């Protein structure tokens, strides 16, 4: 898979959510059946010839086996709670509700009319600066998670506090279960923040430097995978700050203004 610039947080990388071992084919020309077992013997993406050719062609749709380009949709496997890579055709098949797989939509939205305030954020009692929230339909509730050196860590969420918050913020109610998430860059990470010295650059931050986006959930998985690989020390280090800054910048660029359906 081609790692495109960190700036766009490309989702081609499977991060750590992957079902391993697939996608790597026997090296071309190696017809011996030994290549049969060789394909299981090494992590995906490392070609046996040692050439760093991890081409996108190594990735395949996990439903039909079709080859994938670097930019491809993802599906949430509701049974395994994991993300699967998909081709366009399969992704189109699974846009409706019901069934095991659900295609991850690609909208990114921001609601400048109802930004989160510092007080509201504090009420959720999330101990970290960046967190994401999604609806787990199997559990029938909102889950709060934050990136950490271990990948994604779930944290206790005061559900009634969430409900109160969602009442005043239609964006929070707009996310589709399982496939979309709300990501919150808390005070100290955004432009209006003070603690981190504004490392994340200027942007249309909310009143208290808090920025909230409705995002495809695969962004959260991708972020977790990237952070796990780059995390150093207590706060993640410069690399991690850069990854977060790049993510925030790309979300600002992609975000459309949220239009509530019924108000």
């Amino acid at each position: 898979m081609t790692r495109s610039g960190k700036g766009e947080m490309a989702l081609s990388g499977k991060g750590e959510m992957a079902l391993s071992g697939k996608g790597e084919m026997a090296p071309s020309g190696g017809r011996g059946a030994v290549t049969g077992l060789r394909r299981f013997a090494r992590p995906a993406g490392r070609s046996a010839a040692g050439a760093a050719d991890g081409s996108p062609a190594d990735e395949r749709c996990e439903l039909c086996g079709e080859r994938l380009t670097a930019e491809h949709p993802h599906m949430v496997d509701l049974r395994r709670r994991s993300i699967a890579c998909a081709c366009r055709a399969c992704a189109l098949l699974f846009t409706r509700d019901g069934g095991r797989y659900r295609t991850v939509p690609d909208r990114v939205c921001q609601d400048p009319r109802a930004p989160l305030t510092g007080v509201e954020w504090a009420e959720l009692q999330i101990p970290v600066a960046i967190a994401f929230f999604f609806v787990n339909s199997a559990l029938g509730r909102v889950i709060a998670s934050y990136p950490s050196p271990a990948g994604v860590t779930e944290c206790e969420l005061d559900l009634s506090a969430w409900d109160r918050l969602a009442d005043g913020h239609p964006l929070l109610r707009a996310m589709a279960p399982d496939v979309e998430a709300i990501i919150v860059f808390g005070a100290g990470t955004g432009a209006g923040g003070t603690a981190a010295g504004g490392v994340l650059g200027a942007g249309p931050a909310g009143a208290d430097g808090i920025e909230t986006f409705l995002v495809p959930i695969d962004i959260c998985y991708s972020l977790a995978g990237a952070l796990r690989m780059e995390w150093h020390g207590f706060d993640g280090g410069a690399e991690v700050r850069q990854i977060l800054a790049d993510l925030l910048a790309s979300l600002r660029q992609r975000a459309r203004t949220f239009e509530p359906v019924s108000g």
Partner: protein
Amino acid sequence: MGDASDAREAGARVEALLAELRARSGPEAADVAEDLVTCLVRLYGAGLETIMRTIGDDRRLQALLIADPLVESLLLVHDLHPLDPAARVRRALGRLGVGTEFLGIDDGGVAHVRLGKGCGSTTEAVERAVTDAAPEIAGVEFAPREAPLLQITHRPAGAL
């Protein structure tokens, strides 16, 4: 379940079983089985790696191990063979004993071989011997046989 006496047979058997599972129980079951095979192959691979590290540069032990076809095939599966690809190809062609000439492995990972004069060696047999011995190579190319009587021009090795 048939016994698999080397990695080649086991690999073919595994692929056949996975294909059967995919056909009978669908891609989901086959994917789980793929993960399962991967998990086990890597576990044993990690063990083999430790063994080879322990042996280190002991040529005698290395020679004893790669003299066994089963052990050798497993070392190849895990990129743990003590000989480099060129040495393995030379050895395999020597075993074939059909007077083929090994011209080397180029930067693209392609092995170049010149078939012997008028011998019974087929390109298929030689290619298979070479790819078995060095599964990491990108392919095999055959230089033209040397003309038995008159050689009008001399081509540089590997140029076809």
